[in-house]
C-alpha cells in the first residue's frame, strides 16, 4: 500500500471517531455547553487538559527546540511546572466558585463590570494569538502528509472542529480531546520507543536517555557531546552563561501556563473540588508522558542525524550525496533540509562553521569550505520514521497525531473565546435578561464566529501569529494569573486594584515586548534592536511576563490599600471559596 493511502486511512479513521463523538456528545443546556455539565471524571479531564495543552507546535517543534541544547530546558520545566501552581493555587478554588468562564470569576469576585471586560479583552488577545498557530499547524500537517494545499487542509480541519464544537460545546470538545490525546501520544511515543530501542536497547526513552549508546558502549549523552564537539558545536549538555534570563523565562512560562484561560476552564468541568486537584495531577501525568519523552527523543534524533551524515564516525569521510536514502530528497523538496555542495566533493559536510577556531583548524585541514547542510529542527519529529527506517504505518500515525494535536488545542481555545463572548459579553453585560435557550443560541453563534475568524486568520496569518510565546504567555502571566491568585488569597484586593493591576502588568509587558519586537509586531518599528546587549538588565522580551506579573501584584495591592475595602459580602464570598 502506498504511504499516501496509509496516511489517508489513519487521518480519515481518526476523523470518523471525532465525528461519532460529536454526534453522541451534543449539548442540551448552557451548563453542558460551557462546562460539560460539570460531570467530567478527573482522569478524562486530565487527558482532555493534556490534549488542550499539547499543541501543534509542541508536537512538531518541541523535540527540535530541545535538541538545540540545555538552554531550552526552560520550555520543559516551564510547560510542566505551571501545573503545580494550578493544582495548589488556582484550580480547586476556582472550581469551588462554580463559574463558567475566567472573566466570569473575575467579574463576580471583584463585583465589577470593568474588571470583567478587561479580563475578556485579555482572554481574547491571548487565545486568538494562540489559535492562529494551531490553525496554520493543522494546515501544514495536512499539506505534508495528504498532498492537499495547506489552505484546503485548514478548511477541512475547521469543518471537523465546527461539528463537535458547535454541536457539543465543552462536552463535545472534552470527549474528542480524550480521543485526540490517545492518538497524539501514541504518535509521539511509538517512534521514540523505536528509536530508543535502536540506539540504546532500552524500551523506555527515559531510561535510554541515561543509558549507553549501543554502537559505542559509552553513555548516550557522552557520545552525543563527543560527536557534536568534533563538529565544532558546543557540548550538548553545556551550561549557559545567562542563567538570569533563563530563570525569568522559565518563570514566565510557568506562571503563564497557570494563567491561560483555555487550560483553567477545564477545571470547571469536574464534579467536586477534590476532583479539580486530582485532575491537575492526571493532566500532568499525561503531559509528563510527552515532556519526559521529548528530551530523550531530541538527544537520540540529533545523534542519529549525525550518524546518518557520518556513517563511519565524525573523523572519517562523510556520506556521499548520491548514497543518501530517498527520504533525504523527499524532505529536500519541502525545504526543511537544504544541501549545498560548497567544496564540490559530492559529500555532505555538516559542522558548525560559525566556530572560527574550528574553521581554521579541523575544517581547513579537511578541505571543508562551509557547512553544507541546513536542517530545520522540525525535521527531527517529522522525518524521524524515515530516517530511522520505521514501518510505514508509523508515518500514518504521526500524520494523524500532528493533526490531532492541532485540532484539540484549537477547539479548547475556540471554546474559551466563544464562551467569554456569549457568557460575559452577551449574557452578563449586554443582555442580562435573555433566557438559557437564547444564551445557548448565542454561544453556538459565537462559536461559529470564532471558527470563521480563526480560519480566516489561519489562512492570512498576521505578523503577531508567530509570537505565541511572547504574547500569550506574557499576557497570561502578567494579567490573568495575578488577578485570579489575588482574588482567592487576598481578601483586601478590590475592583479598582484588580483593574489597575491588570492594566499596569499587561501594559508594561506589552510595551517591553513591542519595544524589541516592533510595535504591534510590525517589522522595523522596534525601538531597540532585539539582542542581549540592548535588553534592560539582560531580560529578553520573551521573559518579561513574570516581571509584568510582579508589577501587577504591586500596583493592585498599592491601589487597593489606597482605596476602600471590598464589601463585607464580597469578603465572605472569598472566604467561602477557600472551603470545599
Amino acid at each position, binding site marked *: 500500500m502506498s504511504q499516501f493511502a496509509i496516511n489517508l486511512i489513519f487521518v480519515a479513521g481518526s476523523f470518523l471517531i471525532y465525528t461519532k463523538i460529536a454526534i453522541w456528545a451534543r449539548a442540551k443546556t448552557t451548563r453542558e455547553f460551557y462546562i460539560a455539565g460539570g460531570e467530567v471524571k478527573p482522569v478524562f479531564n486530565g487527558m482532555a487538559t493534556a490534549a488542550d495543552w499539547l499543541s501543534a507546535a509542541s508536537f512538531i517543534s518541541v523535540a527540535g527546540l530541545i535538541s538545540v541544547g540545555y538552554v531550552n530546558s526552560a520550555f520543559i*520545566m516551564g510547560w*510542566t511546572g505551571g501545573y503545580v501552581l494550578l493544582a495548589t493555587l488556582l484550580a480547586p478554588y476556582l472550581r469551588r466558585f462554580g463559574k463558567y468562564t475566567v472573566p466570569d470569576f473575575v467579574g463576580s469576585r471583584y463585583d465589577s463590570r470593568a474588571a470583567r471586560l478587561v479580563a475578556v479583552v485579555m482572554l481574547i488577545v491571548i487565545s486568538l494569538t494562540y489559535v492562529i498557530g494551531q490553525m496554520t499547524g493543522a494546515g501544514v500537517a495536512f499539506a505534508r502528509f495528504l498532498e492537499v494545499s495547506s489552505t484546503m487542509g485548514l478548511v477541512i480541519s475547521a469543518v471537523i472542529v465546527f461539528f463537535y464544537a458547535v454541536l457539543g460545546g465543552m462536552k463535545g470538545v472534552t470527549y474528542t480531546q480524550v480521543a485526540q490525546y490517545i492518538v497524539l501520544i501514541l504518535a509521539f511515543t511509538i517512534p521514540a520507543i523505536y528509536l530508543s530501542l535502536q540506539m540504546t536497547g532500552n524500551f523506555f526513552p*527515559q531510561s535510554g536517555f*541515561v543509558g549507553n549508546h549501543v554502537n559505542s558502549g559509552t553513555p548516550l549523552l557522552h557520545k552525543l557531546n563527543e560527536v557534536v564537539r568534533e563538529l565544532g558545536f558546543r557540548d550538548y549538555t553545556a551550561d549557559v552563561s545567562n542563567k538570569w534570563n533563563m530563570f525569568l523565562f522559565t518563570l514566565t512560562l510557568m506562571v503563564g501556563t497557570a494563567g491561560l484561560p483555555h487550560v483553567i476552564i477545564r477545571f470547571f468541568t469536574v464534579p467536586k473540588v477534590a476532583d479539580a486537584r486530582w485532575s491537575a495531577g492526571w493532566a500532568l501525568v499525561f503531559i*509528563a508522558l510527552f515532556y519526559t519523552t521529548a528530551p530523550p527523543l531530541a538527544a537520540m534524533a540529533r545523534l542519529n542525524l549525525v550518524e546518518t551524515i557520518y556513517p563511519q564516525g565524525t573523523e572519517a569521510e562523510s556520506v556521499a550525496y548520491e548514497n543518501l536514502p530517498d527520504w533525504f530528497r523527499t524532505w529536500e523538496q519541502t525545504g526543511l533540509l537544504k544541501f549545498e555542495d560548497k567544496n564540490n566533493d559530492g559529500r555532505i559536510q555538516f559542522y558548525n562553521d560559525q566556530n572560527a577556531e574550528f574553521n581554521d583548524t579541523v575544517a581547513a585541514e579537511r578541505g571543508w569550505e562551509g557547512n553544507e547542510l541546513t536542517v530545520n529542527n522540525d525535521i527531527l519529529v517529522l522525518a524521524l520514521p524515515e530516517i530511522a527506517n520505521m514501518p510505514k504505518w508509523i508515518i500514518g500515525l504521526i500524520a494523524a497525531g500532528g493533526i490531532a494535536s492541532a485540532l484539540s488545542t484549537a477547539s479548547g481555545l475556540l471554546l474559551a473565546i466563544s464562551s467569554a463572548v456569549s457568557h460575559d459579553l452577551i449574557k452578563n453585560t449586554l443582555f442580562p435578561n435573555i433566557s438559557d435557550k437564547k444564551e445557548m443560541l448565542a454561544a453556538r453563534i459565537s462559536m461559529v464566529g470564532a471558527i470563521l475568524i480563526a480560519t480566516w486568520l489561519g489562512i492570512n496569518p498576521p505578523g503577531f501569529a508567530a509570537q505565541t510565546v511572547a504574547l500569550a504567555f506574557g499576557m497570561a502571566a502578567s494579567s490573568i494569573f495575578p488577578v485570579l491568585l489575588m482574588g482567592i488569597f487576598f481578601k483586601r484586593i478590590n475592583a479598582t486594584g484588580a483593574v489597575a493591576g491588570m492594566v499596569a502588568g499587561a501594559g508594561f509587558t506589552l510595551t517591553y515586548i513591542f519595544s524589541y519586537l516592533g510595535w504591534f509586531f510590525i517589522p522595523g518599528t522596534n525601538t531597540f534592536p532585539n539582542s542581549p546587549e540592548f535588553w534592560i538588565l539582560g531580560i529578553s522580551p520573551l521573559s518579561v511576563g513574570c516581571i509584568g506579573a510582579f508589577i501587577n501584584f504591586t500596583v493592585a495591592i498599592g491601589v487597593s490599600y489606597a482605596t476602600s475595602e471590598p464589601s463585607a459580602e464580597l469578603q465572605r464570598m472569598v472566604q467561602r471559596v477557600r*472551603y470545599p
Partner: protein
Amino acid sequence: MVDKQKQNELTQRDHEYWAANLRLITGILIIWATVSYGFGLLLRPYLMGISIGGADLGFWFAQQGAIFTFLSLIFFYGYKMNKLDKEYGLED
C-alpha cells in the same frame, strides 16, 4: 454541606484548616522551586560532580527529574488535602 452559620463567620477550626492548607502549599512550592530553579538551573554548576548515566544531576533535573517531582507534589497535595477535608468535615 456548608451551613449558614459557617458561611458568615469563620470558626477557630476554619482558621486552622486554612492555615494548614497554606503551610502545605508553602512546603510544596519550596520543593517545586528547589528542583527546577535550584537543581535544574542556578545550582547546576555546583552539582556537576554528580552524574546520572552520562548526564550531570542538574541537566537531568532540568530535562526529567523536575517533571517527576512536580507529579509527586501534585498527587501528594491531593492526598493531604483530602485527608484534611475529611478531618475538618469539609468534603463536598
